């Protein structure tokens, strides 16, 4: 695209102007700060309430009298978020094994598998669409894109049936460990090939100058080598966007895991939190808040780290449609 007048450049150009603070500007700041309060108010109260006693939450105090850190310990245990079991040898006292379980651990594992799987599957596909010439390229790309239109609820049942079937097949191949249902494959494999990711990466790969490819080819590099040593190092920003989005996506997932998990072996944190809260009505609101804070923290950390590329990436996809 030739018209690449980006937002950050405009920002920089305007920052050099000395901002005149007049009445109109004050009004703008007032509205924007009101927006900030509305946007983060619920979070701040959530954090504050997570340190309160139950009666303080019920009375809607703004701040707790004492910081009850033990709320977090109780929430972790009661909601079954994290459980670390150290097995030591009874005679010598040497650490034998560490057993980690709980929803937080499950979600972490699921997220790692699905994000890395998605990268492995989507990067080559996006590269092929962006930089290779092959028969049926446009047709296949249009076919891929058309699947983005289909609402998730239509796919739910066929996915379920396919997963059950493939699970049986892989169970008879690999034994009980190969099961799909109530195991990691059902929770991750269907989301490896994300058309959105392929589209986003392709848009970026296309912009890489062709001279680089010519130069690499003269040096005797093939597509694979070019992808690995030139394209990937250049594409940190879109890859970061994809990783962040994938992380958020699998941390958020509720509908599908509700269907394909039957016990806590692999159940992710969204389901765990949802079950904890709905089983606990009206319940210990302070603990619910603490559990929510625990759920939110990893995402917030990731967001603050990847924030810049991420918002840019989202904004770009939005404009291009």
């Amino acid at each position, binding site marked *: 695209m030739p018209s690449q*007048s980006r937002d950050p450049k*405009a920002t920089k150009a*305007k920052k050099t*102007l000395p*901002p005149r603070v007049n009445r109109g500007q004050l009004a*703008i700041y007032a509205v*924007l700060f009101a927006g900030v309060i*509305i*946007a*983060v108010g*619920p979070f701040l*109260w959530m954090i504050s309430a997570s340190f309160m006693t139950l009666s303080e*939450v019920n009375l*809607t105090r703004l701040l707790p009298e004492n910081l009850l850190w033990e709320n977090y310990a109780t929430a972790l245990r009661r909601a079954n978020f994290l459980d670390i079991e150290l097995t030591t040898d009874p005679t010598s006292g040497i650490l034998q094994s560490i057993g980690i379980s709980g929803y937080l651990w499950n979600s972490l594992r699921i997220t790692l598998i699905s994000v890395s799987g998605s990268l492995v*599957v989507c990067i*080559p596909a996006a590269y*092929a*669409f962006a930089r*290779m010439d092959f028969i049926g390229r446009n*047709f*296949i790309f249009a076919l*891929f894109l058309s*699947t983005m*239109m*289909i*609402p998730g*609820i*239509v*796919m*739910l*049942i*066929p996915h379920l*049936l*396919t997963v059950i*079937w493939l699970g*049986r097949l892989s*169970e008879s191949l690999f034994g009980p460990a190969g099961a799909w249902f109530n195991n990691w494959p059902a929770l991750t494999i*269907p989301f490896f*090939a994300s058309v959105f990711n392929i589209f986003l990466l392709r848009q970026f790969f296309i912009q890489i100058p062709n001279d680089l490819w010519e130069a690499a080819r*003269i040096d*005797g590099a093939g*597509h694979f080598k070019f992808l690995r040593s030139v394209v990937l190092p250049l594409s940190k920003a879109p890859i970061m966007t994809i990783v962040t989005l994938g992380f*958020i996506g699998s*941390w958020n997932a*509720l*509908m599908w895991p509700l*269907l394909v998990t039957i016990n806590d072996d692999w159940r992710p944190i*969204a389901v765990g*939190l949802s079950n904890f*809260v709905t089983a606990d009505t009206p319940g210990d609101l302070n603990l619910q*808040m603490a559990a*929510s804070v625990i759920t939110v923290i990893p995402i*917030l950390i990731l*967001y603050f780290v990847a924030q810049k590329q991420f*918002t840019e990436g*989202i*904004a*770009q996809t*939005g*404009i291009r449609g």
Partner: protein
Amino acid sequence: MNRHRATDIPRLGFFDTRRGRIVLENLTAYVFLAPAGLLIALFGLFPVAFAFFVSLHRWRRFPDHYNGLANYEKALGNLAYILFFWFALAAFALAALMIRRVLRALRESDSPTESLNLLSGLVCGYVALLVLDWFFKLIPAIMLIPRQVRGQNTSLELFMAKLGESFAMPEVLAAGNLMILGLLIAIGVTALTAWFFRSARSNDLIVWSAFATTLIVSGVFLLQLTLTEIRAALDAARESGEALPIWSQLVFVSAGVILIALAWRIFQRGINAQENRRFTLMAFSGLTLAVGGYLLMAELPAALAEADDDLLQGFWVTVMYAFGTVPVQLSVGLALAYLLFQPIRFRAFFRMVYFIPYITPFVATSIVFRVMFDAGKTAPANRVLSLFGIEPQRWILERNSIGELFGLPDFLAGPALALVVIMIYSTWTYIGYDAVIFLAGLGNIPGELYEAARIDGASGWRIFRHITLPMLSPTVFFLSLVAIIGTFQAFTQIWILRTGAVGSKVNTASVYIFDELQNSNRYGYASSMAFVLFALILLMTLFQNRVMGRRVFYA
């Protein structure tokens, strides 16, 4: 290094020739694509056909038996037959469109042999259907394997034996043989035409005619299915001595829709016409609209009499949800973005903060809203109300609609207060996202336009109305499309924020379908409802494209 070697060695391998390099490039590309392609075929394309197949069956966890349109009839009453009739017609209309394209291309062509490419398209389209036919005869048997091997010692041999048995079933075998024969013929014909009659347009011709063939055959299939089902329903009704006015409903509802569409067209023309004709056209369109609307009002409820009330309520909730969230979130998002675009400090900070509600896990933020909008007198939301002297509300536990709370009559009642809480939640979540995208859109408007307008003496509002808004229209279009589709898919917030006290008053169609699936295991019925939802989304997208797309200005 390699370059030297290539010149040193006189004999070149196949992959060093020009043709070889093209083959190599193709092969590499397919290798790169293979994992993604396989997964998308399995979890993206195949599910659509499969879901439709499931929806035609009684299917509880495992396939039971074929029962035609019964699931759709259960969901939509007689309207199901009417819809399927229209879908058949739509398939024919699309086919006609394809054929027109083919004819136009042929008229422009100068070589008469070019039309022989159509033969290849015809055969390929038909064979695609044969493949589908074979596949869907095989599927029920394959889907039963997990149940058959359950409990037994699962070994690969057993699984493969069962798989072999399903392939060898007589009707599967017959369809399979036909398919293989068809595939051979198709490959032969395509190779022959490609060899003898290849032209610049032959790819297009083959694809279009293949599509037309598939569409016509599926249209015939749909029409036959609909007619058989209607006849069966009529017979059943006659036996039990009831009257079943499917045909009259079909005629009246169709007439109503056609008249309304016609009124819209006339209205469009009336807007563009000169004064004299304008009035007559407007009056005429009003009249057509009135008649069409009357027909629909009279027959649609009757056609929907046997429909699933919970599903209809789900659609109604979805519509209210969309109207309550999308306009608010878009306009507030745009206003925020416009303010952020002014020369201010801390822009990056504001942008970062506004985005937070969108990226945090919905489950967690929904739970916060659940606590904030609790029914207790001292819950945060009621505290805020009491500041203004309003008495506390029951919020997420309130099944009465906001209209009733204000004492309005029934048909103006609007959404339940519990649903309003969910709307507030969604708006809160998406405003920041909309604002960030609008901000990027604003950054893409060239500054010269503003300069020019300012030189012409345009005021702030006029600049916004006549420059910013038109230039932003693609973004508005994109965001409203995303928002509406998002409404149909909303799940997490409703799952967390609904309470037993409000019953199904907050269940959108998706949530209701999910309930049917998880609690009652009705796979067939849930699939059919999902398809109705899909059709609705498609129709709305088309409608939005036509109505809004015309106003979108692409610079």
